[in-house]
């Protein structure tokens, strides 16, 4: 990424950051679809559906927690970062540890 117009650069970076979150959503959706299809198959064919429902519920719950945490952290950090960019012209050299 070349050092060009700061506003364009900022938008590209923001786009990539949002894409990271969207990629995770796609992945989580894929996992949930897989679980759903496995449950569906077991119910339709009467192949121990209780096994399938219990196990996929546990995994779904874990993924819901992870997705919630990621959404919360990503959105807050990105929003705050954008706010700082608007106020002071960029996050660069402002991070404090």
């Amino acid at each position, binding site marked *: 990424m070349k050092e060009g117009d700061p506003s364009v650069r900022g938008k590209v970076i923001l786009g990539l950051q949002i894409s990271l979150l969207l990629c995770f959503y796609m992945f989580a959706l894929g996992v949930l679809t897989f679980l759903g299809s496995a449950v569906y198959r*077991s119910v339709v064919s009467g192949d121990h559906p209780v096994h399938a429902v219990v196990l996929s519920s546990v995994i779904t719950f874990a993924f819901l927690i992870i997705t919630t945490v990621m959404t919360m952290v990503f959105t807050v950090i990105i929003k705050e970062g954008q706010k700082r960019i608007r106020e002071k012209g960029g996050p660069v050299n402002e991070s404090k*540890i």
Partner: protein
Amino acid sequence: MEALRPNEELGRGQNTERIADEILYQPIMKTGKGFYVTFAGLSLVVLFALFAYYRQFSIGLGVTGLNSPIFWGIYITNFVFFIGVSHAGTLISAILRISKAEWRRSITRSAEVITVLVLFFGLGNILIDLGRIDRLLIVIMHGRFQSPLLWDVVSLTTYLTASSFYLYLPLIPDIALLRDRMPPGFRKSLYEVLALGWVGTEKQIHYLEKGISIMAVTVLPIAVSVHTVVSYVFSMTVQPMWHSTIFGPYFVAGAIFSGIAGIIVAMAVLRRVYHLEGYFRDIHFNYLGILLLVMTCLWLYFTFCEYITVFYGNEPLEMSVFMEKFTGKYAPHFWVMVLTCFVIPFTLLANSKTRTVTGTVIASISVNIGMWLERFTIVVPTLMNPRLPYERGIYSATWVEWAILLGCFALFTMIYMVFTKLFPIVSLWEVQEGREKAHGEVTERLLTYLPPS
């Protein structure tokens, strides 16, 4: 997380703190000749492993020592071993973080990286064992929840996802620091994206702290369930010496055991290569050494319980597996396992004079060798003595399997090296937070433990 809080008045004073941690930036900013030489050497090993895998892929699993009835060998041993080592980071880091163990601060990152990386190798070995990778699609398209193999697939996916985020979240403030000091270029852009615009506002700190805490609590049951489920692949069958009720906890204990040993070895290498004596101090090795000693005793206890039950039961097929391990073809593996998993580590770690950095590292290497052998002696001897009337077989791994095993270790080391070149291997903000805040916190906590005077 005081260290993350923006403090406009701190000004130059904060730079003094940064200089104290300058050595942590060195591996990222500069790359020496040694790195390239080591990387090239490891690349050769990986290329050899790729050639071996190409032969297996083009000719078939016939190039391995696998055959009926021994259809699982080194690859499955690797799978169980790597998943075990993966417990290093997440589990230990999460436990230390939740229990507010202050000495965790400089070691958590190096442990969390191990977790995420070795999980890929664990999963990779399953794919290698399948022979044809496209068979994975069969699991996805037609998998049944009745099968423990599918439990493995879903629990490992969840664990890998949770561990990756558990590694990434505490990395964000450190990535922001790198973003700020990196000259323009690809790496700066990479850090800009991954830092998510971190500037350390009150709100960002609050939510990141909350996120890390939730993930630390979430990842613990997931990590325990993963190795329990790995053990179920064996114990849910009625094969001799696999069908055991203690396999779940036995595997989890073994995983933590090999995980701690893995962290110690990684810390020792990093300390030596990057001169991080100030961060990976003798006290860290001492504490981890004590933890390893506890796990050594726990491992012996579980192993004793497992074998005494089989011996006392005296069931013919179980006894044939038992004797195969004690006096048969796999006796060398078994007794070396006992030596390396108990005798050597216990001797070194039980004595405070030998529980030095060197002693702890030797014990850890020994434990890792022993735990690999343990997985091997669980997998192979049972398959040699199946309940069904198959012809008995003998398993000898071929050069293809050994090459792939070596390739796994080499590739893991390479990726770990690359990680240390991209991100700080010690959590900068956690160390600094420790300097600024931990002293007061510990004193305050101590007062809550003691009766009022």
